[in-house]
């Protein structure tokens, strides 16, 4: 898809450079975590400049060791008005961290009309009950089928001192004109 990445100027692509950077950084962090040599992580706005306009807060979601396959952890990010979910999938995910790159997190506000999506374990999808848009958490929140015109915003994660932390958001959260208010 190199050719298509070249056309990424079209606006609202969010995967190419950001995700490549994410994979490098988070992959590195995971690798280090596995060896026990975890460096002190710098401030989020320094590690993920590509996703930060004004600087995202750092939020500790859960200890890595406690996130098992099938885990579903609700949290709010980047602020209390933004419900999100962390998932550990049974498969590697684009932008995933942790064992087998299987841990991902998303805003749960559907990018169609803002209803909450729910994780359907039987199908490994995030499904909106209002108009049945569905999103693939293993594919950077891209829509499987439905009426949204944007992927589900993916929350950038990193592992620091054995803790999974949210450090940024790729894509615009429903109902906002900026992610950081």
């Amino acid at each position: 898809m190199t050719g298509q990445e070249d056309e990424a100027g079209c606006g609202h692509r969010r995967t190419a450079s950001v995700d490549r950077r994410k994979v490098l950084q988070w992959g590195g962090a995971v690798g280090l975590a596995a060896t026990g040599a975890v460096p002190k992580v710098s401030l989020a706005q320094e590690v993920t400049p590509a996703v930060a306009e004004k600087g995202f807060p750092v939020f500790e979601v859960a200890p890595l060791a406690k996130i098992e396959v099938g885990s579903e952890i609700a949290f709010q990010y980047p602020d209390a008005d933004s419900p999100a979910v962390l998932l550990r999938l049974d498969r590697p995910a684009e932008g995933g961290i942790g064992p087998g790159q299987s841990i991902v997190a998303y805003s749960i506000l559907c990018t169609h009309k803002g209803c909450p999506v729910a994780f359907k374990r039987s199908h490994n999808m995030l499904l909106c009950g209002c108009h049945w848009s569905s999103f693939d958490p293993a594919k950077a929140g891209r829509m499987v089928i439905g009426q949204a015109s944007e992927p589900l915003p993916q929350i950038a994660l990193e592992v620091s001192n054995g803790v999974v932390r949210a450090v940024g958001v790729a894509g615009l959260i429903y109902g906002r004109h900026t992610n950081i208010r």
Partner: protein
Amino acid sequence: MAPPVKVPLPPRNAQTFSTVCQFCIVGCGYKVYKWPVGRDGVAEANALGVDFRQPQAAFGKWVAPSMHAVITERDGKQFNIAIVPDDACSVNSGLSSVRGGGLAATLYAPDRPTKARLTTPLLAQGDGQKAVSWDEAVGLGAAIIKAVTDRWGADAVGMKFFDHGGGGGGFENNWAVGRLFFSGIGTRSASIHNRPAYNSEVHAAGDAGIAALTNAYVDAQLADTILVVGANPYETQTNYFLNHMVKNLSGDALSLKRGAFGAEAVEKGRMIVVDPRRTMTVAAAEAAAGKERVLHLAIEPGSDIWLLNGIARIILERNWHDGAFISQRTETQTFEAYQRSSLMMDRPRNEMLGEAAQRTGISIADMEKAAQWIAAPKADGSPRRCLMHYEKGLIWGFKNYENVAAIVDLALLTGSLGKPGSGVSRLGGHQEGYVRPPYPGGRPALNVDEAVRRGAVKLYWVGGCNPLLTTLRAGAMEVAFKERGGLVTASLRASQGKPIGERVAGVVEALKQGGMFLMVQDIYSTASSAYAHLVLPAAGWGETNLTSINGERRLRLYQRFMDPPGDAKPDWAIMALFAKKLHEFYRAEGNSLLANRFLDFDWASDEDVFIQARYAFKGTAADPIEGYAGVTYDLLRRLGPNGIQTPTRIVNNVVVGTARLYEDGKFATPSGKARFITASPPYPGYAAKVEAQRKRYRFWINNGRSNHIWQTVYHHRFLDFFNERMPIPHLEMHPDDAKELQIAAGDVVEIANDVGRVEAMAYPTDAVKRGHTFLIFGQPRGAAGELVSDHVDPATTIPYYKGAWADVRRIGPRPELTKTVSFLPQNVAE
């Protein structure tokens, strides 16, 4: 590139425009905001009138990144454009679809992928095409049209043009195209978008005296039962489904029903879906209504006539038909013929239904259930209200004429016309806006594909269509373009730099040798335009005012809010340029008879075309839906997102619309009564070349549109959101079939038969039955047309697009193509 963390808000003084989505038939209302770059509104004060210091709640007003674009006008000034769903529009009530939510992303901009738009006329030169002025393009093109007409007659000028509403079409452009080709040139060699001829897709409905679009969308909220045959409205008529059908299925429309029907028994709606696939429509309907109120009839190909007539037979024998309607509103002798022929009343019931069950794969019990839901009287004895919808599964099914007849007959049998909660209508694909002078040809219409391949068409003008992609037996069309077109290309190359007279003479020589001059008018380059000798850049949606109707005949003004790219012009203006040039040529020759055919193209504006068409368009008695007496742009501007439903009439100086057809009980036949259209037994069988294919190959290659893929993805192929979902066409196949052929999700497969071959990515899913598959219809990297035989219904010249059989073979994974593609099921709603 950085992701969008900020979408600019329109300031309070942003310019606003009312428009309608350019894509599907539903025609959702959208609001356009335009403001200069750098003059954004702020969170607490903006044109949306909401305070973004707090996040919007669900169903609030939100500008998604895909709803915003920066454009550059011809004078170089840059503007922000935001296009958001209009909550004042009764069609969508503020809902967007996957298509409409991305309207802004499709706008032309010199710094985004839509920069691929055609911006100047192109003329074949050397090995490629070079930019020329409109003067040069029109001078040469018109001279060749005249030379061809003079030597070979009008039918040697072939055309394949849009005839639709919405983006690129509309009343204005359709009228201008019809004026040039029909009342001007006078050719019968005309055809419509992907199809080989110029014809209605619903001749049977017309013959019955019934228009294609009979109901109002609100009828889907009022019906007791919605019957959907061969359509998938969640994906392809989205907000009709979500904003109207679902409200009925979920019970949200109960108070509306009570208000409309008083004491009549009402409950939440039921839905019957006839579709070989378990689509998202079925899943979503079940989630909304409960499984017990949705009946999915997974029909075998080629058996719709059996199913619909089997259900009708049950209704008749149970005495659930509407006797009063039949005796007062239909021609009685046609009802007698219908019972005898279509319903086979001389065959015992169980024998007829047994054969229907065997052919359709649907049990008699399910047919009885369907009959009951369609026509059994309600708890209080009042007649059931059934709204019947059909689209390509039936229209492009096995026998176009009898298929459409069968559902129209079912509506007549049950009196499902002219009352709230009823109707028999196409669900539709594109929007409508068919206003043209009468087509000079007869019926069945001339097969233009054949005339192109045979050499009878000397000049072929293709507008807003891409025959190399979507026609049937598309490979053969490409050979004709290449070989016949090649002769003309060689001539143009040889005459480069010479006076126009010599160049035209050279082209005529090439045509005599079997050549064909190809003109393509479009907004983007296409597979077809690559072979064109003359390419004409057209303006698109938002770049010219246009008017269209949606699936409930709702006529609105789609306002112009930006310049067309470069020198691109609206189609109507291009037609006028050629007409004026032809007029000039014939007048110079003293041929006033022909010169006069090209008079009255002096339109100063889009509204001039609209008004001329309003006076001149008579329509046909069977299809009055585009009549719009008294309507002006000014009226439409005042009516805004809800417009007015056609046909209109003037009552005491007020323009009055028509929400629902046939409420007066008068149908479009000389008697004013509707006609049952019979299918004579034995029902038609497969044509020889279809039957041979069916016997030889393992898989039925059903095909059609999908949620993400609008028609040929002409805009969306440039946008990551869509491209990442469907970089190449996908082929749905049953997981067991895939396993047997060692095909995994995402594997590229070859689909091949005696007509051609297509490559697609496998998408295993239980949506399809074993032995069935489903291929995306018009994806430019592989279209179903490559596999469809050139068989057409002899009564209507409508192809059997759904009738292809082929073998499927694994090629192997192509992760670089499919890495962004999700293979999760597309029919899960709970």
